Structure formats: structure tokens, C-alpha cells
């Protein structure tokens, strides 16, 4: 388990502000955030490479706040792997085993290199190895001394897209095998969705939301999060009328959201100013209006069509510009072009009010 209590840290002008996090034992925890949000700084602070200005860091049941990095037993891997260029692969992996007897260290190197499929590379120099190989060696080096937790800083970012997919699968398989408490830093939310048991989103030195990935993605807690997580249809306005009643039995919405001429049926707790977000894949596009009380129906005009297989992104001007995402098949079945008149519809429950 890793627990951060009000941790603040700074690097030059940049500062982490009062970070509170709890990573359960055996968890694959993803720290998600845009570049410059302080993810690496936080990871280095957990590893002891930076001293927090305040707060406490606990690893399992030990307060490690004052402990030097060499005594924390933390496995750490940087985005660009940083293998020691003056050593062979074998000596890189064995680097953290310097306190063990030579035969024990040899055995451990063998074990870890079998686990990460590096047996054939042990006597190579690190220059000239592929990105995927370097990544596995860096991981083997971090795992060899049997750390209590594993901290991975953008472990997939330096790989080409094909290798990335494969290595992502390998990381997941490795985690399922070792069940080591892991923090994985990334700016890629697809990566986060696939890997995370739990995640936290960081922005400008703060944790802005933490929880299970599904919850964070479905219910982003701020406009920043909605935009960052790819919820593109974000509108600001007011909840003007609370109808009341239980959602789900008979009524499918209980309030009206108003943003200028745009009016939407939504599910909301109370009146007042609010923002709404609709994920692009929740929007149905059709040539005729679909009638149902559960639906928001808006007439609009297709302004832009962006094809990036297997999906098509439509920008539809319907009072406000909406982004909808369709599969290529449904797009072709619709048979529309830019300028076409269409209807967009989405459920009240698909609108996230915040």
C-alpha cells in the first residue's frame, strides 16, 4: 500500500499542492494527467528522489517520508528507461543486487530475465537494443531487487504504437502474475482505462479526481476533466426547472438544462448554474427525428466529417456545435455528406451534469 497525506513538493517554480492518495496493496494504479501536471515530480517524491516540503509518505505500514531513496525498496522506471550505458544487459539487471552473494544474484538475474524474456540478450551491450527490449530490461532491473512497490513513469510513451499495444498486454500479464503495488504515470487515457484498477487525474500540481476508471470517465468532476478525458460536448448554462421524481420509473428526466436557445432534458439534483457533458459516442445521428420521451432531439446541419478508421467524427451545428462519433458502418448506412440536415438524439441519462 502507498499512502500520501497532504504531500507538497516543489521543483523550481512548479509545486505539488497537498496531495492525498491511497493506493491499495496489489493495485495497478494509474496517475493520469497532461504534460506538466506534476506526475513525474510526484513519482520522484514517492521514490525519495525529492524531499516533500510537507506531508507524509507511507509505504505499507512504514512512514518513509524521511527515508533516503536507497532504503525505500521502491522499483522505479523512467520513460526513456535510462539503462546504464557502460554496463551489459546482465550487469544492468544485476545492478540492484550488489548486496547479495554472487550466486544468489546470478540466480535472481536468471529468474527475472526468464520472466521478461531477456535470456538471449544478457551479454549484449545496451546500445543498439530496440525500444521494447530496453523497456523490458529497465523493468527487469527495477524488479530484480524485489521492491515493495513499482513506480513507472510513462513506461509506454517511448514505444512505437504496435510495440506499445504488445507491451501494455505484457505489463498487465506481469502485474497479474506478481500482484505488486504499482503506480503507472501516463497522459494517455486509453492506456489508463485498459490498465488501471484505480486512477487519479492530476492537473497543475493537484489531484483533481481519483477513483475507479469507469466512474472517473463517466462522471468527470470538472470542465478540465471532461475536456481532458475526451468528453467533448461540454456546455455551460443553468438548470432551470426541477420537475422532481425518481428517475427510472416512468420519468426519464427530472430537469431542464438551458444554455441560450439550447434546452436539454437532464437528470439533475438541483437548480442553478451548471455544466453538462455528453460523450460523443452517446449521440445518435439520424435523418428523421426519433420520438421518445427519454430522448433529447435536436435538428442540425453536418458541418464537418473527419474519418479516422474505424470511427467517423461528425461536427453537427444544432444550436450549438455537437461532436458525434459513429462507426464507419453506421456512417455509411446513414449516407450523408457535409451540409446534410440531420437529427441528433441522446438520452437524458447520458448527459453528465456537474
Amino acid at each position, binding site marked *: 500500500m502507498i499512502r500520501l497525506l497532504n504531500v507538497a513538493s516543489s521543483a523550481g517554480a512548479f509545486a505539488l499542492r497537498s496531495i492525498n492518495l491511497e493506493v491499495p496493496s496489489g493495485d495497478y494504479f494509474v496517475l493520469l494527467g497532461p504534460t506538466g501536471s506534476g506526475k513525474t515530480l510526484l513519482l520522484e517524491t514517492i521514490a525519495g528522489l525529492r524531499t516533500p516540503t510537507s506531508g507524509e509518505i507511507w509505504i505499507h505500514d512504514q512512514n518513509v517520508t524521511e527515508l533516503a531513496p536507497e532504503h525505500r525498496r521502491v*522499483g522505479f522506471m523512467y520513460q526513456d528507461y535510462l539503462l546504464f*550505458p557502460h554496463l551489459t544487459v546482465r550487469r544492468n539487471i544485476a*545492478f540492484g543486487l550488489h548486496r547479495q552473494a554472487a550466486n544468489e544474484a546470478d540466480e535472481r538475474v536468471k529468474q527475472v530475465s526468464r520472466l521478461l524474456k531477456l535470456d538471449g540478450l544478457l551479454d549484449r551491450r545496451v546500445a543498439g537494443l530496440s525500444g521494447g527490449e530496453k523497456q523490458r530490461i529497465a523493468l527487469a532491473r527495477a524488479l530484480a531487487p524485489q521492491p515493495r512497490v513499482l513506480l513507472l513513469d510513462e513506461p509506454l510513451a517511448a514505444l512505437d504504437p504496435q510495440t506499445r499495444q504488445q507491451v501494455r498486454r505484457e505489463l498487465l500479464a506481469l502485474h497479474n502474475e506478481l500482484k505488486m503495488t504499482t503506480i503507472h504515470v501516463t497522459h494517455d487515457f486509453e492506456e489508463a482505462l485498459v490498465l488501471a484498477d484505480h486512477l487519479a487525474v492530476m492537473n497543475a500540481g493537484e489531484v483533481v479526481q481519483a477513483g475507479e476508471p469507469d466512474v472517473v470517465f463517466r462522471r468527470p468532476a470538472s470542465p478540465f476533466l471532461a475536456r481532458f478525458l475526451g468528453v467533448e460536448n461540454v456546455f455551460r448554462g443553468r438548470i432551470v426547472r426541477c420537475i422532481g421524481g425518481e428517475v427510472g420509473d416512468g420519468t426519464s428526466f427530472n430537469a431542464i438544462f438551458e444554455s441560450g436557445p439550447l434546452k436539454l432534458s437532464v437528470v439533475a439534483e438541483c437548480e442553478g448554474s451548471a455544466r453538462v457533458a455528453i460523450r460523443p459516442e452517446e449521440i445518435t445521428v439520424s435523418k428523421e427525428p426519433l420520438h421518445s420521451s427519454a430522448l433529447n432531439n435536436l435538428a442540425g446541419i453536418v458541418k464537418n466529417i473527419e474519418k479516422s478508421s474505424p470511427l467517423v467524427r461528425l461536427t453537427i451545428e444544432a444550436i450549438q456545435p455537437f461532436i458525434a462519433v459513429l462507426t464507419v458502418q453506421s456512417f455509411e448506412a446513414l449516407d450523408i455528406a457535409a451540409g446534410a440536415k440531420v437529427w441528433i438524439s441522446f438520452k437524458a441519462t447520458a448527459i453528465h451534469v456537474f
Partner: protein
Amino acid sequence: MKKPSGLTVIFSLLGACVVVFLLAPILKMILSAQPGSLAEALADVEVRRAILLTFGCATWAAVLGALTGVPLAYLLARRTFPGKHFIEALVDVPVVIPHPVAGIALLLVFGRQFFGGRFFDHFGLSFIGTVPGIVVAMLFVSTSFLVNASRDGFAQVDPRLENVARTLGYGPLATFFSVSLPLSWRNVLSGGIMMWARAISEFGAIVIITYNPKVASVLIYDRFTTYGLTYALPLAVILILLTLSVFALLRSISYRASGVRAS
């Protein structure tokens, strides 16, 4: 063949002046020495003693410089602290002050009536007219080469490599010896050789502190003023051939050093 541009022609002509200016005196000197006179000079006990003394003292200076200058270089490359810019400038000062001035300055500290001299007197060390005096003079004028080269070497090592070592159970000192130093040893070594070569060629500061025993440069000066060019020349040629071989070694090491750091 493509016609060279105007710039290439003009710059080549101007550049050639420097090359000729540097090469001509050295070549002329080497060529004007009779092989017989070189052998004769080498047979001279005083010459052999001066050369051995010079190389021995320069080696001592380089070792002492490495023990103190390399740690300083590491701090300059890695840490920020008050007075850092002052220290960086200070390291370069011996290169810019006239070396007899350096000699006088050293005299004012290491002379028997001054605090440095009195302090070391307790250990039986004196610096005026002695071998330790030569070493101190060499150290003063040449340490900056080692410090600057080592600092550049350390600065080129990604500090995150040191971070990785720390997370793998290495304390700061163990990290220095297992990561920082092995990755910058070529810079440190070439700085050391440069320092050594500079120490061998020193005259101005040494002649103030220790005229006798004579190092090679002082002996050349002594022969020149006492007996004239004919007697000074063979020794000068021997010294220049020796320093040139050292310099060739330095160049080959620093040449190989470029391009090994990429991982």
C-alpha cells in the same frame, strides 16, 4: 568538382596563417636540433634529472588535483549553492594571471614567514627551493584544466541515471563511484592529462618559488641565459617531443570519448 565559395577561400587563407604560425616555430626547432646533440643532452645527468623531476612533480600535482578537483567539479556540475559562480570564476583565474604573479602570490602564502608555510612547517614540509614548492606551483596553474573538464563530464551524465541507482539501493557515494565516475572517466582522464601537460610546461610560477632543484623549463632558461641557444636547444627539443607525445595521447582519448555516452 564544385568551385569553392568565396567564404571558403578567404577563411582558408586566413586560417592557414594561424596553422603556419603555430607549426613553423615548432617544426623549425625540432629540425634544427642535431641528433648527436640530442643524444648528448640525454646523456647529461642534470638534463635527465630535470626531466624526471618535472614529470614526477607534474604527476604529484595531477594526483593531488584529482583528489581535490574532481569532487569540486562534481559539486559544480550537480549542486547549486551560494558562491557557485564565484568559485567557477576562481577556478579559471590561474589561467588568466601572469604566472610569475602566481608564483609571488604563492610565495606570500607558502613562504616560511606566512601562515601556509608555518602550518606545513609542523609536518616538516617547506616550499621555498624544494620539490613540494614545484608541486604547489604546478598545482596552482594547472588544476583549472582538470576541474573544468571533469565538471563538463559530470554535467553530461543524466542526473536521472543517478536517481535510478539510488532507487536500486546505492547511497550517494556508491552512486558516484558506480555511475557518475564510470560515465565521465574519459573527461576526467583527459582533464588530468591536460593538467599534467600544463604542469610540465610551467615555468613562471616555479622559477619564483623554486629555482633549484631545476625542472626542465627552468634548466632550459638557465642554459639559454648562461651558455646561449646551442646549449638550450637540444633540451628544448627533448621537452617538446615528450609533451607532444603526451598531447597526442590526450587527443586520441578525447576523440574516442565523443559518442560513447549515447545509451
